[in-house]
């Protein structure tokens, strides 16, 4: 049998068909190409500065393990001069997180990086096991997501680190782009596509060095590098779904391998076409009166479920939108004309504060950062999402104890 030679080195036998562009490469060349591309992303986006202390959000899963491995390799190879630390969150899920934390502990030894673990228990006085016990499995991911986002930042602050890198990959970003198109949330679309999030006012910035790396290539990289990672799904994560954007992305990838990156590119480009800072320059009800509830950190969920969107989420969005439509029907004509012709060009000129009565007033834009009056964590509301959720939980706990 005639074997194909690697398209890059032309000497070794091609062993891997790259998911990204179907190039046939040998194992060594694949690994080096993968690393080179992450290096390109890092340098072209000026992600780091020499001497920077960077925390790697490590769950023990494939994405964050590959991220840690690649960053260590590149840091040494290209002399980034980074001080890398593993930062793990212990959600308190027995039979899942305790095992994956063992993986992270091994990684810390393998990569010779310090490891910091912050737990929900110490931060919020609640483990996810207790949360699920109280509220049931339904909707527990919302709590977990909100808590994790804050926990990562708090953990970083404890370490005196201002930069957290996460393992979000191209598939995650592409999913968020489609999700936010379906949801009609342009502000979030814009935020989710940018490689660095958090402006000057937020104390900890986040970045996604694997933003352009395919999930499939991450798996291949982990496999061929023989990385030690944990691949069990979270025991509380929603079941397999149908009709979510993730499945759409996988189908598109089959039709055209570049589709995932093409979606990311489209998302970045569309982010630059968003009028103003806020999506609500059109007084559309979907934005101002009733923001669609979703995880604050909606990219890739918690990593353990591969960021898949559940069917329920689509249903929730549909429900929200219908409610908005129902409200819309009660509105005066001005509003109706507006939403009806929202695609028309002249529409942009009409920018009237139509609905002071209901929900959030336009005078309170959603993205003004302040700090939570309870925990001091940055928040756009008086009380941050985590404290709101905690308040709910604590009410229930009090009742149970009585």
């Amino acid at each position: 049998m005639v074997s194909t030679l690697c398209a890059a080195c032309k000497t070794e036998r091609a062993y891997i068909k790259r998911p990204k562009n179907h190039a046939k490469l040998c194992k060594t060349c694949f690994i080096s190409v993968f690393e080179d591309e992450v290096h390109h992303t890092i340098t072209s986006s000026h992600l780091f500065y020499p001497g920077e202390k960077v925390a790697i959000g490590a769950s023990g899963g494939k994405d964050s393990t590959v991220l840690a491995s690649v960053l260590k390799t590149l840091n040494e190879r290209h002399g980034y001069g980074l001080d890398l630390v593993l930062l793990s969150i212990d959600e308190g899920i027995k039979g899942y997180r305790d095992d994956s934390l063992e993986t992270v502990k091994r990684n810390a030894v393998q990569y010779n990086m310090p490891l910091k673990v912050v737990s929900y228990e110490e931060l919020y006085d609640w483990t996810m096991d207790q949360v699920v016990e109280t509220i049931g499995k339904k909707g527990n991911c919302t709590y977990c997501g909100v808590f994790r986002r804050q926990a990562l930042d708090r953990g970083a602050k404890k370490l005196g680190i201002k930069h957290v890198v996460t393992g979000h990959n191209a598939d995650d970003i592409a999913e968020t782009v489609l999700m936010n198109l379906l949801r009609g949330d342009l502000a979030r679309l814009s935020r989710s596509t940018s490689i660095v999030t958090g402006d000057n006012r937020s104390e900890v910035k986040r970045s996604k060095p694997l933003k352009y790396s395919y999930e499939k290539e991450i798996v291949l990289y982990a496999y061929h590098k023989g990385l030690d990672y944990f691949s069990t799904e979270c025991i509380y994560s929603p079941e397999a779904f149908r009709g979510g954007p993730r499945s759409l992305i996988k189908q598109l990838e089959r039709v055209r391998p570049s589709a995932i990156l093409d979606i990311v590119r489209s998302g970045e480009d569309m982010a630059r076409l968003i009028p103003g800072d806020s999506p609500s320059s059109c007084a559309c009800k979907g934005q101002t009166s009733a923001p669609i509830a979703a995880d604050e950190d909606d990219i890739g969920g918690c990593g353990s479920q591969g960021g898949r969107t559940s069917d329920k989420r689509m249903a929730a969005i549909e429900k929200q939108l219908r409610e908005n439509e129902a409200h819309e029907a009660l509105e005066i004509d001005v509003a109706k004309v507006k939403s009806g012709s929202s695609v028309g060009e002249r529409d942009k000129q009409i920018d009237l504060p139509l609905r002071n009565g209901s929900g959030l007033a336009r005078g309170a834009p959603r993205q003004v950062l302040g700090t939570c009056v309870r925990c001091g964590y940055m928040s756009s509301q008086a009380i941050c999402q985590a404290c709101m959720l905690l308040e709910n939980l604590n009410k229930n706990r009090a009742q149970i104890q009585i």
Partner: protein
Amino acid sequence: MELEPGAGPGSLTRPCSKCRARETTLESRSHAVCKDCFMNFVATKCIKQIGLLGKETRPPPPASGGPPTETRRYLLGLSLGVSSTVLLHLLNENIEFQLAKGRNAPFELVVIHVDTSLFLPDQNGQSRLAPALDAYRQRYPRFTFHCIPLSSTLDLSSTNPDDIDWSSLPFRSPFSQRQGSSDSEPSPPQPSIDDTEKTLQTLLASLPSAASRADIVRLLTRHALVSQAHQHGCQALLLGHSTTALAELTLAEAAKGRGFSLPWLVRDGPSPTDDDEDDDDFSSSIPDDHTATASVNPTSNHAGGGKDRGRRRRLLIYHPLRELQRRELATYASLTEPALTPLLGLASPSLDNSNSSNNRIVSHKDLSIEEVMARYFGEVEAEYPSVIANVVRTAGKLVPREVTEHEGDNNDDDEDDYEDDGETAGGEGSKKKRREGRCGLCRMPLDLAGDERWRGELGEKKEISLQGRKGRSRLCYGCERSTAG
């Protein structure tokens, strides 16, 4: 959708929730309604958009004063699918309604079907779709119908800034003798129809995948329609896209990396290949009488038609069915009297949706992006109609950009002052600028800043092609993907 008919005549078991006078036979948007109210609902949604368009295309009053003498003239792109057929029917109804009231017809309509089948005409020079079109002609004698082969796009003069710049494409130019030609070179002799069909077939066969072919066919179809609209002196191109189709288009184009030009595709308004600042290219004179529309005159390159009163005829693209779901249109088509369904059956079954152009060339095993989207939305439409409407609304909120500022694009100094040039530089200069600022294939504005930032992310070495070869148009990201793989 259709419910069981009511129990008995006389007594209303389930009165229509809108008129309360007739029996409910349908469920429309969570309301139980009668057939008349449903038909009325569909018609109203469409006519509302036609009304908006009518305001945009109001003819100027004659210099002598008095009411306008010109008539509005629109072009309808008829795919022979459900949506565009319903649109045709609704437009016909609208005209009949106005005439019945003793008013003038609100607009003239030219109907064009772009034949994407790539099959050669039979011996009589007839397309195999001729019987289907004849049936339409019979049903709607008021309108002129034309069938244009997709290969007609190959004949478009390349000196026109809005036409495809074949030299920008990585594959062989359809007319080899034209290769390397400059803008000023006169058009080569017209090749025979057979030749152009074959050339187009070869060209499409050279594309890397079914997805690419479907994408390019879609682009060429749109080119053909826009070009026909200009040639027929139309003020607007009407497309039959439903909400569902627009949502599909939005996500499909996003999936093809065309996010940057997306707002141009889904909104109602001026054609993106149109430019108000230039006043020469497309101000074709309006044919004197109705019969003149039958002959397709390439008048597009003649400057300033006298009948135009110096006003440039810009082309608007409208989607009058944008607020209706695909399944609502299908229901409508089955309820008209007589039903539209027999008309739809005349074209090949694969034409049975608004994406007709994409269905023919694709083999069974490899799908196009459009088909993946159509399947997805087929599932989603019934369950999540508001999500679909929201996609279209969201895409409509994006602000289309003409040409981006380019951060650090040192390779094309002469383009840096592009935006200032629009009004000051006239004639050939600005025309050239316009060409350079646009993709050579889809003619959408190029996203130079985005290309600059993106370079290298695909892990391919051939990003250089995004730069364009010297003296040729660049391709946008989406077209680059479709032509290169």
